[in-house]
Every structure is written in structure tokens, then in C-alpha cells.
């Protein structure tokens, strides 16, 4: 490279305008140009003591070249001084530049990754609900605080629901003591029912923050489950005692049943007790009695299942006293007029079977017809069914009356 430059120096070396050294064959036009230029420059150089810019556009860019220096020293113009020094440009420099860029980019990447890791780590610590390693030092993280506060709301809401349902149960039990006299205590019962309505109409659920949207029905189901779980836990605790209080356990059972019976709660909440009809009101009272404590519920169910035999006997009398059978039954005219005379009844509640024994007497021989009428009347009655009497016999006494013994079996129609 230096030898090249040197050669170039030798090749392009020119004087300072006074005389152009003989250049090799390249001199020609170039030498003339240089000579002219030198001539123009010389006065300017002589006039100024301060160093002025010498050289050309290239030297202006790249600074004074060695040739210029030589020129200054020697005063000679050279091509090298005109053109300036050849810029230092090499593949190695480019490679170095790129290597620097690559290094910077790598550092940037590492830094970005490190910061991302830090950011991720920070939010993991704050938002991961299961991370509890640092809880002793830093307390709960944000998500854990969020879940704790939601759980607290749910706990208080469950406590409120528990108190409300205990209150409702108390009112319903009080109503139960009055149901048997509801004709007299109608107004008081309705007043208490309105209070029960207010309690049962309030929703169980409370709006809490959640990550996913939740419908009103889902909220109600959730809080109902929380309430039932609380009662079950309390009941278990009470039952685990050395001498469990049976009344307390029954109380828990009654509450759990009331909470589980959504239909009953909705029915109570739906009625307008100011305008309810007597029939509907009786129905509501019977339902309340049936849904009451286990004992009251059992009492109501057993009483409802009982057969009223007085009413059954009364219906038999009605059938017997019909026109076609014996309108004067039971009037003591059997000996004189005839008719039906029942000597015994047999009733069985478990099967609903009824057996009647007696006599039928008539002055004419149409005894069998009377019996047949009675059988038809029994069958027609909505209260009885399945009468089956297929063997008839009659006798005639000395007075000319006809009589037939009667042993009838039939059943009570289930109401």
C-alpha cells in the first residue's frame, strides 16, 4: 500500500506553480491545468500569513494529505494533494462495526429478557393464589387478599342467612301453635305470615367480585349450598358431643329441611295474604303444618291419613235411607213395616273393608229386589266400591212376611 502511494506520489507529484516538474508521459493536459492553478493560488498564499485551506474538495473532506504537507513544504502541487489522501476503508472495519452492533443487540435482548423475567416474577408473586412462601414476611399477595375478602363476605352473608332462617322457622313454629284455632286467630296468623314472607323473599346471595360472570340463579344456588354446609357442620359438632341435645339436633334438621324446600319458600313468598281466599289459606296452613318440625309434620300426616268412621257410618245410613232401599231405616219400624236392620258393622282401616250384617224384611216377596237396590246404591255412592253379593236366600214367617239375612262386604273408596 505504501509503495503504491509512493508510486502515486512520484507519479502525481506536481510543483507549486513555478515550474512543473517533468511528469512522465501523463503530464500533458494535467500539467497545464496544474500550472494554471498554481499561478492562481500563489498570490493568495503570499498575501495571508495565516494558514488557509489548501487542497481541494477531497482534502476538505479528509483533511490535509501528506501530499499537501509535502506541497506546503515543497510548494509543489501534486495530484495526491489535489485529490487528498485515499480514505482508510477496509472490510475489517466493517466487520468490527457489525460486531459492535451485534453485541449491542445481544445486550439489548438479554436486558429485555431479564426485565421481562423480573416483571413476570413480580406479577407472579402478586397474583398467584397458591404462592405462599413469602406470606410470613410480606403477608398475603393481592390475589390472596382478594379471595380472602370474598370469603369474608360469603361468611358474613351466610351468618345473616342463618339468623334469618332461624327467625322464619321460629315464626312458622309459632303459626303452627295457632293453626288448630285458625278461625279465631286468622288475623294474627296472617300478620306473622307476612313477616315470614319478608324473610323468605330476600335473596340468599350477595353480589361479590368474581373473575367469571355469574348469574343470579347461580349465586342463589351457591349461597344456599354455603348455608346448608354451615348447618351440616354445626349439626355434626352438636351430634359429636358426649350427650347430644336431641332438641337441638331436631332444630338443625328442621332448618335444613326448610332451606332445602325451595318450592315451599317460593309458595309462601308468592301469596298475597291480604287478599287470599279461605280455601287457599287453609291449604297454605296445612302445608305449613306438614312442613313443620319433624314431629308436627308427622302428626299432620298421620291425622290426614286417618279414616273418619263416623262419617263412613253416616254415609251408609244415607245410602240405606234412599228411596229405593229403606226410607224409614233406623226409625224402629222394622218389626211393623219391615225394611233393613243392621245388627253389626265391621270396619278395617288398613284394607278399607266394610262388612255389614243384618236382616231385610218385607211384607211382599220383593226382598231380593230391595237387597239389589241397596247393592246398586252402595256401588253408585262415591264413598264405596266393590260390593259383591251373589247368594240370596229368604224365608217366610208365620205372619207372611219375607225376610232375608244380609252379609255384605264392600270397600271404602280412596279419597
Amino acid at each position: 500500500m505504501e509503495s503504491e502511494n509512493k508510486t502515486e506520489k512520484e507519479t502525481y507529484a506536481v510543483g507549486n506553480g513555478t515550474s512543473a516538474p517533468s511528469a512522465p508521459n501523463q503530464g500533458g493536459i494535467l500539467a497545464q491545468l496544474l500550472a494554471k492553478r498554481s499561478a492562481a493560488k500563489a498570490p493568495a498564499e503570499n498575501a495571508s500569513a495565516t494558514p488557509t485551506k489548501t487542497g481541494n474538495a477531497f482534502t476538505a473532506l479528509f483533511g490535509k494529505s501528506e501530499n499537501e504537507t509535502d506541497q506546503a513544504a515543497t510548494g509543489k502541487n501534486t495530484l495526491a494533494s489535489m485529490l487528498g489522501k485515499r480514505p482508510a476503508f477496509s472490510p475489517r472495519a466493517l466487520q468490527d462495526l457489525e460486531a459492535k452492533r451485534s453485541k449491542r443487540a445481544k445486550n439489548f435482548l438479554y436486558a429485555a429478557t431479564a426485565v421481562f423475567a423480573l416483571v413476570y416474577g413480580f406479577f407472579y408473586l402478586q397474583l398467584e393464589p397458591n404462592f405462599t412462601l413469602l406470606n410470613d414476611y410480606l403477608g398475603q399477595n393481592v390475589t390472596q387478599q382478594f379471595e380472602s375478602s370474598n370469603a369474608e363476605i360469603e361468611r358474613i352473608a351466610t351468618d345473616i342467612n342463618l339468623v334469618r332462617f332461624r327467625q322464619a322457622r321460629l315464626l312458622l313454629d309459632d303459626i303452627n301453635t295457632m293453626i288448630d284455632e285458625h278461625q279465631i286467630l286468622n288475623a294474627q296468623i296472617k300478620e306473622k305470615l307476612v313477616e315470614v314472607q319478608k324473610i323468605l323473599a330476600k335473596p340468599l346471595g350477595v353480589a361479590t367480585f368474581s373473575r367469571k360472570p355469574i348469574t343470579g340463579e347461580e349465586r342463589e344456588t351457591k349461597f344456599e349450598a354455603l348455608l346448608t354446609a354451615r348447618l351440616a357442620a354445626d349439626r355434626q359438632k352438636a351430634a359429636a358431643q358426649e350427650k347430644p341435645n336431641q332438641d337441638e339436633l331436631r332444630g338443625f334438621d328442621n332448618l335444613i329441611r326448610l332451606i332445602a324446600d325451595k318450592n315451599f319458600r317460593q309458595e309462601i313468598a308468592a301469596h298475597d295474604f291480604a287478599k287470599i281466599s279461605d280455601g287457599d289459606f287453609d291449604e297454605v296452613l296445612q302445608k305449613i303444618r306438614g312442613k313443620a318440625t319433624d314431629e308436627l309434620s308427622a302428626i299432620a300426616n298421620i291425622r290426614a291419613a286417618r279414616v273418619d268412621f263416623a262419617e263412613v257410618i253416616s254415609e251408609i245410613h244415607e245410602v240405606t235411607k234412599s228411596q229405593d232401599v229403606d226410607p224409614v231405616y233406623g226409625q224402629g219400624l222394622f218389626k211393623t213395616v219391615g225394611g233393613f236392620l243392621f245388627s253389626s258393622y265391621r270396619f278395617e282401616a288398613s284394607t278399607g273393608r266394610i262388612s255389614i250384617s243384618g236382616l231385610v224384611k218385607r211384607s211382599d216377596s220383593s226382598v231380593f229386589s230391595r237387597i239389589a237396590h241397596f247393592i246398586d246404591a252402595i256401588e253408585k255412592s262415591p264413598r264405596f266400591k266393590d260390593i259383591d253379593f251373589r247368594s240370596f236366600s229368604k224365608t217366610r214367617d208365620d205372619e207372611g212376611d219375607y225376610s232375608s239375612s244380609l252379609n255384605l262386604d264392600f270397600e271404602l273408596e280412596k279419597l
Partner: protein
Amino acid sequence: MTSQSTIIRGSTLMLILASTVTLAMLTYGFFQFRFMQAQRRAVAENKMTAVTMADELNSSKKSYDELSKAYSAVHEALAKKIASILPTDERYTDLTRQLDEYFVVNDKDGNPIFQSSLRFGKGAPVAQFPGISALPVSMNIEATRENFFKFLEFISSSGSLDTGIRLMAIKGVQLNFPDGGELLKNPRQDLNFTVEMSAYYVTPKVARQ
């Protein structure tokens, strides 16, 4: 030329990658921050709600306690009545006394009722009514027609909280008119009847030996 191109592509690629990582971090950080802030606000609001609800709970507890005190006497009476209607054991001696008392009260001159026999069977759970057992009772009674229906009414009204009479139900009746058959017009007509009943009670936790 080729080696220079490779170097250029490498640094540009890393730059792009680094920019992407930075962008991802910013986006992730932004959304997570918003989420965290939302949770913080929710926690603050929940704290205020909890205070309000705690007040409501205290007020509800107060009213329940007042109601409970007011009804404690009523409920004690109710529990006693339930215990007399549906005792926790057979209690057949109590029932004997209760029935005797009935017959004594209703046996009047000109309108008698006479319990000639009383038998108790062994109590057993009733499948139809879980938790409830029935004590079989049978009686032979001589009475007037009026007293017979009165007795039916007595059994029909048993189990009422109003009367506190032991809950009973008639299972079977054999009714006989010994003197010339049934006379509807004579309420004082003599008759006799055998009645089979069940007297109910709460099935004990520990079975009777």
C-alpha cells in the same frame, strides 16, 4: 460480501427479537397491572361491604334474640304439647291413665260408657311414617250410641295441639247392636264395640329390650 450479510442479518434478527420481547413484556405488564389494580379496588370495596354487612348481622341477631325470648315460653309449651301428643317412647301407662280419664268423665247416668278391657301390643316402627312407631291398643267398650260417636270424635281429634291428647288412629271397629239392630232415632241405644287402635310415638334411638 456473504460474511457481511450474515453478520448484518444476525444483529438485525436479535434486534427484532429483543424488540418483540420488550413489546411482550410491556403488554403483559400492562394487562397484569390493570388486573392487579382491579383486584386491589375490589379488596378495598369488599372491606367496606364487610363492615356494612357486619352491622346488618348484629342487628339481625338482636331481633332474633328478642323474638326468641318472646317466643321461648310459647315454644316451651309447644315442645311439651308435642311431647304429650307424640312422646319419645311407648308410654302406655300414660295412655292408660289418659283413656281412663276419658271414660270416667264421659260415663254418666243414663248415658254410660264402660271400658271392659284394655290390651296393649308391642310397639313397632311404621314404614309409612319414618321415625314414628305405633303401639297397638285394643278395647272392649259398652256404651250408648251417642257415646260411641263421641268416642269416635275423641279419637279423631286426638293429636291436636289444642287438646294435647296422645295421637291415635282407629285401625278397626266391630260394632254390635244387641237389642234388635240399629236405631237411628235413639241416641241412648245400647251397643257394644271392640276397637283396635294405634297410639303413635317417636321411634326411640335405642330400641326397647
